[in-house]
């Protein structure tokens, strides 16, 4: 961050593998895990294939794609991923022809994994090489750390084997091999990780992060040139108020000084993840939002934010309806 400490690999491990685990917290790249990670072998294969794809793509994006417009960038990620995966599949078919059958189309789909697009777009094209490389390795580790236990567990419960060897489980539940079983296992893993984070690192739990992000969005909106440019003072204030009304836990508009402090506090430990390279040494979400033209995927928390707000509305409606 603004303090001159270098971004180390343990920072990346903590942030990208654990706190922002690509699968369990960011809910990206689920397709392969849910559909095909039914045995330990395929899980290991997918995890191994994911390492070169993510690392090479992210490093390339960081080195060469910073000035390329966004709509071309995403296509280039796909092309790089496809090229690497094609090589891997060719190698597997030549040297170990008996493995690749299980992974099928999903090995090829690794090239189009949403984790790649997410991390390249949100991080690699905005930071230096060191940061991008560490993040890619840590993210791939996070992916492997989820897919391998999931594959092993599903193989044990679903088909009573492990790495193809028979272990005698009295009752097998073949339903766990279906995609819904994968979702169930993932859900329990995600719940466990969330519980761990909430207990050990309460400052990083998703809800507080959402709050921080929301308040920092409110703050950064004040500083945005688009809002400041029209020279009409009341308008941005009205917008800010409406944003604050949407988030029920945000403080009253007069106390905007307090959330600034909380945002700054958390800057110091975790949100290095989101630091833009060419920012003025200060974490500011407006940098990330600035080039989001479509605004579809604003940041990691936005989809959940929306879900939460909708759920709250839904609940309050139900309460209004109830019992009268």
């Amino acid at each position: 961050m603004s303090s001159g400490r270098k971004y180390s690999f343990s920072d990346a491990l903590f942030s990208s593998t654990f706190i922002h685990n690509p699968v369990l917290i960011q809910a990206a790249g689920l397709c392969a895990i849910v559909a095909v990670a039914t045995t330990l072998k395929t899980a290991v294969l997918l995890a191994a294939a994911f390492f070169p794809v993510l690392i090479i793509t992210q490093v390339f994006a960081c080195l060469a794609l910073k000035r390329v417009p966004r709509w071309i960038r995403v296509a280039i990620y796909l092309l790089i991923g496809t090229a690497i995966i094609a090589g891997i599949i060719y190698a597997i078919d030549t040297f170990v022809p008996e493995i690749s059958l299980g992974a099928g189309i999903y090995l090829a789909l690794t090239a189009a994994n949403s984790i790649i697009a997410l991390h390249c777009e949100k991080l690699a094209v905005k930071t230096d090489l060191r940061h991008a490389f560490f993040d890619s390795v840590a993210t791939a580790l996070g992916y492997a750390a989820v897919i391998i236990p999931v594959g092993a567990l599903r193989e044990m419960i679903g088909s009573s084997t492990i790495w193809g060897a028979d272990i005698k489980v009295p009752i097998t539940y073949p339903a766990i091999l279906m995609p819904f079983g994968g979702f169930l296992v993932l859900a329990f893993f995600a719940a466990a990780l969330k519980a761990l984070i909430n207990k050990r690192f309460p400052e990083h739990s998703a809800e507080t992060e959402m709050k921080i992000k929301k308040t920092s969005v409110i703050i950064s909106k004040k500083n945005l040139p688009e809002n400041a440019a029209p020279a009409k003072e009341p308008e941005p204030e009205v917008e800010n108020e409406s944003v604050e009304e949407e988030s029920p836990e945000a403080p009253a508009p007069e106390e905007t000084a307090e959330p600034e402090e909380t945002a700054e506090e958390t800057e110091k430990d975790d949100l290095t993840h989101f630091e833009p390279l060419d920012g003025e040494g200060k974490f500011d979400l407006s940098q990330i939002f600035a080039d989001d033209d479509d605004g579809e995927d604003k940041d990691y928390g936005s989809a959940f934010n929306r879900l939460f707000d909708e759920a709250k509305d839904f609940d309050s409606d139900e309460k209004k309806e109830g019992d009268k």
Partner: protein
Amino acid sequence: MLAAPAIVSWYYYGGLAFKAILTGVISAVAVEAAALLIMKRKLSCLSDMHAVFTGFAIAMLLPATAPVWLIGAGAAFAILVAKIPFGPAHKAPFVPAAAGMAFLTVCFPGEVFKYPAIDSASFDVFDAGSSLAAQLSAGGIQHVNSVGMMSMISGNVSGALGTCCAVALLGSCALLAVGKPKRLFNVLGFLTVCSLLAVIFPRGSFSRPVSLLTELCAGSLLFSGIFFVTDPGTSPKHPLTRFIYGAFAGIICMILRYFGTFEDGTCFGILLANAFWPIADSALRKVGYHKFIEKSMAKRAEKRKQKAALKGGEPA
């Protein structure tokens, strides 16, 4: 409420029914108690009888000769996966018993649909494909005709433990009307849509009245409609919304019955209805339904106030 089908199942299957129900209830309660202890929650959560209901319902949906481990597995899945992670019973997004049944159906379709022939002495004769639902999905009109209307209504056909006897289920429906009349709207919506669909689109070469009767009696349609659609955790609260929710669940269940792989897909229908209801609800909201409901509620509240004022005014 579950007493009526339980008594009928005891009448038909004797001790087997008692054993199955006891297994279901005990395993569900034990699993929930263990989970609550591990998670350090209060054991008093058990007193809402939801675990008892879940185990009971799973036993009722399985054949009378279901092995202990099958009932136990279903109850354990229902409690551990569909209930405990979401906190107290009224917060579960899916009906736990339906989830447990769906899990069993996917895992062990052979065991779940292995109904004993009801007229055999010790229930060790298994008559494959003799249940009404199986015949319906196979389109076997002759066998259905030979069953006879009376035995169809009274549950004298092979099938799951507590779902066959339509009379008993309607009896518990009447109990519902006395005890919790609001929940009747769910059942009404569900059964209206199901019977309408059964009349409009009869399966095979059934005549329309026969189709109506067999569709309603076959499988767990009535049971699910009375016990699962009315589940207080997943159901909306306003009477009209309840009716719409029931109808929504009915449509999904009937579609699954017509096109599903398994002979009885009602549990999946209930789960899908649970899952898609928030979307349907937001669609309703876009149409302006919620405003309409709020307005009508406000009007009613005003009327009540006026009445109360009148009543208060008269004695003064």
